[in-house]
């Protein structure tokens, strides 16, 4: 058992009025112990569904995990009973959601919400749990934990609530923390605080983090490894330096190019990715990015490329990486290499 989490060929689809939406179409990745993996992609690319599949949070009705396996410490989560999963959730794997406004129970005191999990999973009594909860609040950087302990969520700001959620998620010393856009709803100065906190706690406890985000700046800040998702598949994966500086997929290159370069004085026109992502009711047989890709060839429309190995640990699902493909200058020039 080398990796903490191994996801293989995961396929998830939803039934809806219009037919079957293939939200996740064969996603594989792994997360090592103490590693931060960033999952990058635009809305609808399947990144949140993947996380929900790992946490088994997908609705039972209308949703279908068609194929694949999710191994956590060698055990397949998809084959686990509800009871086994309940024990795992909250203690071994926990999750922080995007919206700190709606993910706390508005009718329960902060303290109760933190100690709930501790009592359940750690078998501590109420006073011990309270002591642990206060310690966690302090760790999460919340001033005056004693008075906050008895407050309700509406009395806290967005950043404070996100800190409480992180405290809850870390209450039982989980091995894996799944953070789904944890800072998207926050202001930049608060985002900086929360990212700092997460990095700090990750160093302290060696927690592995699966960080879902669309912000490549946050990726650079936090992650060691990155997977880039598009239309339900992983189009590129590698180390953070591979992805941000030597990307080998036109979609990743497009994402990086569409960001304004605010540090340079020169004002250049942005280079957007034209068009919109494909409809996942009827995903294209070839590369899903082909319709928006300026390098698209005939084969791109016909056949979905396999994951080409760029170098050890860096994979790209793009036909341009095939030795027979024409050389594309942007592949060499891509990224933001310092000159």
């Amino acid at each position: 058992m080398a990796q903490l989490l191994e996801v293989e060929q995961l396929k998830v689809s939803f039934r809806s009025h219009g037919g079957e939406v293939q939200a996740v179409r064969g996603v594989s990745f792994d997360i090592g112990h103490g590693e931060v993996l960033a999952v990058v992609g635009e809305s609808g690319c399947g990144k949140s569904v993947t996380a929900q599949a790992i946490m088994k949070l997908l609705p039972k009705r209308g949703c279908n995990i068609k194929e694949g396996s999710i191994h956590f410490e060698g055990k397949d989560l998809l084959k686990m009973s509800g009871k086994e999963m309940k024990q795992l959730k909250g203690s071994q794997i926990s999750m922080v959601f995007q919206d700190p406004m709606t993910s706390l129970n508005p009718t329960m005191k902060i303290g109760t919400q933190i100690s709930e999990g501790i009592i359940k999973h750690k078998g501590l009594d109420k006073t011990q749990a309270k002591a642990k909860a206060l310690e966690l609040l302090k760790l999460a950087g919340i001033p005056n934990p004693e008075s906050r302990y008895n407050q309700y969520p509406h009395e806290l700001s967005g950043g404070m609530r996100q800190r409480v959620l992180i405290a809850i998620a870390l209450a039982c010393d989980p091995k894996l923390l799944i953070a789904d856009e944890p800072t998207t709803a926050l202001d930049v100065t608060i985002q900086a605080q929360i990212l700092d906190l997460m990095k700090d706690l990750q160093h302290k406890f060696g927690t592995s983090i699966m960080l879902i985000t669309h912000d490549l700046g946050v990726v650079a800040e936090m992650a060691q490894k990155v997977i880039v998702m598009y239309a339900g598949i992983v189009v590129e994966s590698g180390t953070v330096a591979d992805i941000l500086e030597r990307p080998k997929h036109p979609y990743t290159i497009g994402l990086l190019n569409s960001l304004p370069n605010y540090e340079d004085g020169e004002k250049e026109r942005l280079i957007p990715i034209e068009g919109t992502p494909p409809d996942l009711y009827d995903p294209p047989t070839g590369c899903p990015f082909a319709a928006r890709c300026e390098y698209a060839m005939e084969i791109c429309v016909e056949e979905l490329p396999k994951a080409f190995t760029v170098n050890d640990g860096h994979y790209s699902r793009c036909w341009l990486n095939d030795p027979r493909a024409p050389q594309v200058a942007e592949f060499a020039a891509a990224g933001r290499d310092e000159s």
Partner: protein
Amino acid sequence: MTEVLLEVENLKKYFNVGKQSLKAVDNVSFSVRKGETLGLVGESGSGKSTLGRTIVGLNEATDGKMVFEGKDVRTFSNKEKRKYNRIVQMIFQDPHASLNPRMKVGDIIAEGMDAHKLASGKERMDRIYSLLERVGLQGEHAKRYPHEFSGGQRQRIGIARALAVEPKFIVADEPISALDVSIQAQVINLMEDLQRDMGLTFLFIAHDLGMVKHISDRIGVMYLGSFMELADSDDLFSEPLHPYTQALLSAIPAPTVSREKRERIILKGDPPSPISPPSGCRFRTRCPHAMDVCAAKVPEWKEIRPKHWAACHLY
């Protein structure tokens, strides 16, 4: 470029909250020049949206002046107000909530034209088609409903609606923050093209500093209802004067791994409540340079360097 389109002087917008008053915009003065893009940044609750809405007329100002093309908007006659409502338009943040789901796209776009009786019959349809094409959609989209479009397309519809009444000045309130990264660049490019072709003036409100820098000629930084700093966007980014601006800029995570990481200034705590803002300088409770004078006296809004304004006791 130097001709002033809108001059805002000591503008205040207070909301009543029970017996207290929430000072959303407090004593703000700045000008918008013809043809420029003025960016407005600040965290949630800084009053930037309220300021935008007050300028457009969606909120009534509590006090102060807004001089548009030489005349105070607040003393306008009804006829002048109607004209002002036409030539000053707004683009909203949420493309899902700002289009009426029961109206066809063509009628949404034409609503302003109808209200101002700008066109009817075939001319009206022709203008709808040309507007749709102008913003990168197709004429046939006029017959569809908003739910048939993606977020980026809906934002284009919102822009077409604003353009339909031939505006001079557009207040764009976080027009791209609900969109995906690759779509954001599309919308920004469209706005830049429109500005160049139609000579529009923009007030661009956002919290994404990178995009604001890209699109703006000048940038104003707001905190808790007041301006902290206002400067040409290059100056603001290269030499921020106000400690709040410095912290704000240092907080943006850069999408790069090789570059030396900038020293990050982490602000402690959250912004205080605008119902009872701190005495003196509003930022002093989180400011790393706070001095005694900061609590005692409101810092003066002054031109510290040519064209570079800030309100801070350090200068």
